[in-house]
């Protein structure tokens, strides 16, 4: 991987990022397109020199920034002038005060849905890709790539189009049509791999070490340390939108687990910087039963995650061998949270509950978080009297198949008042 470094840290401007460090053994590396520790294979993370000084001034500077993730540029591995570069400018999505859903689920405290379907390509992936694009620019890559369960492929295709990169992305061959079309429409190459996501991921990991992949920036492989940092912006936004306060409880979907770990990292940074008052918070992870390696390990008390072969309608979460699984277990236990799973039937039911209660049409991953929230409340694990934030990370239009069977027309009638009267819907 070092051989692929096309720019070195002395020429790279990624703002407050000072280097990479191994999350397992702490070994430091220069900023570059590397992702695994040369000593122990552990994941590399961006290390920062975060802004010091008056929290009030930093809060004011953030609030005066653009209505997208670049308002948090001083806390991200991006150059200071990032807001002026061609980007989809994702983020600052709605934090919906979900009073109807609260009533439906028996929540007496506050319940919010962080609705990331409002991003440019309708999933949270635009956040992480936007950061990876800046790293790709800094390292001189001209092609953007990824392994994807669908949402990421669309986000990379769109971001590449805007930012002037070529794109070639890889997906399992049997994804939902909405995701395939959405990934293909931006004009880049879209390659279906005969296998599941873990097979696609393995393929990309091999491609990256081959001359065929030379000069390619894989957003979630060799740019993964940077890419992952984009998920911190979910934590920043939630706290800012709550009036610079930490939520008591937050329910996050788990695929690789990266998003959950970065939300925790973001919350910890806000505490450290004095931007929010320090208080306990609990992070809950949500999986589908048909791909539940992390919840299985959590409930069994294990600190390693045994891979599974996924079989669930929640394809965006169908990662059987989740890279950040062990860290999710650590965080859920450290914060007093839990990792739970729900059946596909419960996922569909939860999509409908959210849609009917709040007018938010979530993709299956949103069904997983709402379904798990419901289950955790019913089981007495999540406290319904506190402030809870549930993530919806994608748009239901991408997974129409999940609810299409019984969400169609109520009636089909001739265009006459008599026919409407006869249908009994007046």
């Amino acid at each position, binding site marked *: *991987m*070092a*051989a*692929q470094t096309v720019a070195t840290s002395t020429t790279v401007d990624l703002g407050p990022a000072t280097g990479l460090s191994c999350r*397992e053994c702490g070994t430091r590396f220069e900023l570059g397109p*590397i*992702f*695994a*520790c*040369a*000593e*122990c*294979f*552990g*994941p*590399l993370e961006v290390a920062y020199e975060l802004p010091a000084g008056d929290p009030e001034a930093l809060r004011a500077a953030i609030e005066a920034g653009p209505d997208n993730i670049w308002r948090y540029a001083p806390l991200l591995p991006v150059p200071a002038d990032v807001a002026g570069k061609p980007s989809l400018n994702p983020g600052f999505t709605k934090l919906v005060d979900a009073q109807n859903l609260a009533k439906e689920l028996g929540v007496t405290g506050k319940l919010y849905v962080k609705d990331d379907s409002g991003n440019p390509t309708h999933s*949270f*992936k635009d956040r*992480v890709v936007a950061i990876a694009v800046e790293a790709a620019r800094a390292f001189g890559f001209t092609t953007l790539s990824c*392994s994807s369960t669908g*949402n*990421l492929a669309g986000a990379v295709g769109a971001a590449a189009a805007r930012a002037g990169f070529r794109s070639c992305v890889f997906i399992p061959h049997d994804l939902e049509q909405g995701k395939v079309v959405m990934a293909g429409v931006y004009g880049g190459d879209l390659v279906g791999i005969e*296998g599941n*996501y*873990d*097979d696609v*991921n*393995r393929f*990309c*990991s*091999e491609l*990256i*070490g*081959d001359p065929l992949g030379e000069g390619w920036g*894989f957003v*979630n*492989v060799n740019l*993964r340390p940077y890419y992952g940092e984009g*998920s911190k912006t979910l934590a920043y936004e939630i706290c800012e939108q709550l009036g610079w306060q930490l939520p008591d409880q937050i329910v996050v979907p788990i*695929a*690789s*687990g*990266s*998003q959950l770990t970065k939300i925790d990292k973001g919350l910890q940074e806000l505490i450290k910087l004095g931007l929010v008052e320090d208080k306990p918070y609990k992070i809950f992870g949500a999986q589908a039963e048909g791909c539940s390696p992390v919840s299985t390990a959590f409930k069994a008390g294990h600190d*390693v995650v*045994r*891979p599974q*072969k996924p079989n669930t309608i929640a394809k*965006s979460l169908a*990662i059987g*061998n*989740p*890279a*950040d699984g*062990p860290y999710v277990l650590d965080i859920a236990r450290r914060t007093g949270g839990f990792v739970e799973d729900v059946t596909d039937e419960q996922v569909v039911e939860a999509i409908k509950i959210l849609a009917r209660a709040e007018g938010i049409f979530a993709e299956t991953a949103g069904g997983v978080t709402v379904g798990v929230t419901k289950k955790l409340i019913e089981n007495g694990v999540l406290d319904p009297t506190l402030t809870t934030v549930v993530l919806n*990370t994608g748009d239901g239009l991408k997974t129409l198949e999940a609810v299409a069977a019984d969400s169609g027309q109520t009636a089909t009638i001739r265009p006459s008042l008599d026919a409407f009267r006869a249908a009994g819907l007046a």
Partner: protein
Amino acid sequence: MSVTVRIPTILRTYTGGEAEVKAEGATLAEVISSLDANHPGIGARILDDQGKLRRFVNVYVNDDDVRFEGGLQAATPDGAGVSIIPAVAGGC
């Protein structure tokens, strides 16, 4: 049993830059030990102090993740392809 082992970039310093090398062994444990005999030091990068696969290493024999196939005891048939891959790729 002779197998072909695909080496990830971060371990190629041990193989003189080679992306693929040959190794011998009927099980993954034997293959790693053969690999280490030919390329001293590489074994300790793949296995931890207790001799187990490091938690951020994935190993595949042909297309099968060895964690489903008995781990270090996974069979490595003659002519098999063994891939060693950092586990921290992918996902959201």
